[in-house]
């Protein structure tokens, strides 16, 4: 009885120590994860800055006046005149 109690107490003691260590480890891991999160958030910000830059570039390149003049000059295309249009109705 006395020995059993002592054993139980010892176990509890070990448990407490173990838990304490786990708290520390957990806390450490949380901070590490947070650091990673911050890194990723920064990366996200950089990527979205890049994305909006590309989006802006795309919209300047997509400007139809630019597209039209390039189509005319570089590809030798032309707008169809009314004579060249046939309307097909289904």
């Amino acid at each position, binding site marked *: 009885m006395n020995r059993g109690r002592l054993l139980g107490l010892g176990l509890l003691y070990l448990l407490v120590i173990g838990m304490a260590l786990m708290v520390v480890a957990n806390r450490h891991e949380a901070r590490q994860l947070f650091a990673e999160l911050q890194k990723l958030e920064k990366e996200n910000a950089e990527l979205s*800055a890049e994305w909006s830059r590309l989006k802006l570039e795309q919209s300047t390149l997509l400007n139809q006046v630019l597209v039209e003049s390039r189509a005319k000059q570089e590809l030798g295309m032309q707008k169809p005149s009314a004579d060249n249009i046939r309307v097909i109705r289904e």
Partner: protein
Amino acid sequence: MKRKHVTSPVFQGRRLLLMLLLLVVIGILMLRAAYLEIFQQEWLQKKADDRQLRVATVPAYRGMILDRNGDAMAISSPVDSLWCNPQDLLKAREEMRHEYELARQVTDATAGKADAEEREMHELAATRFARLEAGFRHIEETLEMGEGELLRRLEKEGNKQFAYLGRHLPLEVAEEILALDLPGVAATREYRRYYPLGETAGHVVGMTNTDGVGIEGIEKARNADLAGKDGKTRVVRDAKGRLVESVVNLEEMQPGQNIQLSIDRRIQYLAYKELKGRVYELNARAGSMVVLDAHTGEILAMVNVPSFNPNNRKDVEPYRYRNRAVTDKSEPGSTLKPLTLAAALEARVIGSDILIDTSPGHISFGKYTVKDKGNYGPISLAKLLAKSSNVGASRVALLMNPRDHWMFLSKLGFGRVPDAGFSGESAGQLTGYESWGKVDHASHGYGYGLSSSLLQLTHAYAPFAAGGKLMPASIYKVTQQPLAQDVMSAETARSVLRMMEAVVQKGGTGEMAMVEGYRVAGKTGTAYKFIDGKYRDDRYLTSFIGVAPVSRPRLVVAVQIDEPKIEDSGGRAAAPVFSKVMAEALRLLDIPPDNLPDTRQADTQPPKQTTEGAT
């Protein structure tokens, strides 16, 4: 075994005293510790938290503004705002410069033979200083400041605790400075707004101020939806201000919503380009243009000249901000005549094949006289529009009961705020018919005595293109069709459209509005300005409003040019712009041509109306 108790006669008292003293000291320390832990715990914890814990704001991403096809018209991009404590920074810089100069002297003096470690240290200091200087230069370049200006500004604010090194810097530029790990320098994440369309869509999209709050256009009208809600989180910071841990999320960040407009940026761009060119060509004061899809009420393009570039807030004078097509009201002039005819047809006081006698070319109401350019004699309604006869329009107006006429104009939205989604929309002016005299009634027939914004006028033409139905105007993309209002019969709409087609034909006032491949109907207008109690014949608004394609009408395009300096009567100033923009808009929207050379003959026979889906 019994130990013999030996007592040292000499040291006994001294030992006791020493132990007692030690015990007392330990006791004091323990008491103190207990006191702090038990009684002062709360206060101390608070102090510690004050140093480590901060409530950090998580800025919400501002939603995008998209055009009807999902292309961006306003994008937020993350930027850093660098701020510093000028005192600390200047001191640090001075130290670095000192080391830098020392390093130069050392390398000069001891060429080669100095202690390697020491030299390395000096070199490090030298490069750090060089990097700081380079970073400053970079900021100055990005913010378009002169060389050395940033430093002078810092020195001026040297006694303050806070100063911005630069707001809204690209991430790389801020990183350059932050990497130096200087005391008292930190960055705040913010968002900067970019507008790919620049001045083309300045009035519609609007802009935000430096703090990201919408102050014009849609940015202002829908600020709450776009802005979202900033989040708050409690974080632990270390001594250098870096975040160590996020303790608790106080408020969840809610990103702003995207808002989709009814604008088609391709048409918008083209409309702006053409209008701007024309306004400069005519040396006019201003110009506006609206492109409306009559079937849905969506505004496909809305441009004004002069405009402003929302990307660059520096050079903006207030008059450039005004979205004239929505906020400015003016008397519509002759462009109102088709509506007079429609009102009369609806009131059944005339038939569509009636002849109106306009001789002798003028008509008098007491001291007022309404004049035409010549005596046209008896003319058909189509000719009335083609010649833009004021006498004819007055006669037709006077045939109506004023109440019916007023009701018709009111139903079309005159005197009412269009509620299309802009801020500051003008309601125009339409006085009650009870107060109309004969002159007033007649003048309402040819477009004077009432006023409207260009948007209202364009909207009022929509029923001609939508079989007599009026859809509410909207700047937002319409996903669920709202209820249409029946304002005239489909028959009236069609016959007035036919009459307006005569305007856009060889010899008509709107000849220059013709579009190759399409049948176009429209009306020119010249509205003299009423200044200081009289109409000025040297200052006027010239406009053109048209509908196309006539066989299956879809678009309404309105152009208005304010005070062209080059003498130009009727719609000749505005019609060419109309023609170019209408042609491109029809092509971009894939609307099949209805006036091709080989179908022209087919038009004389009853058109083969088969299925709805074309091409």
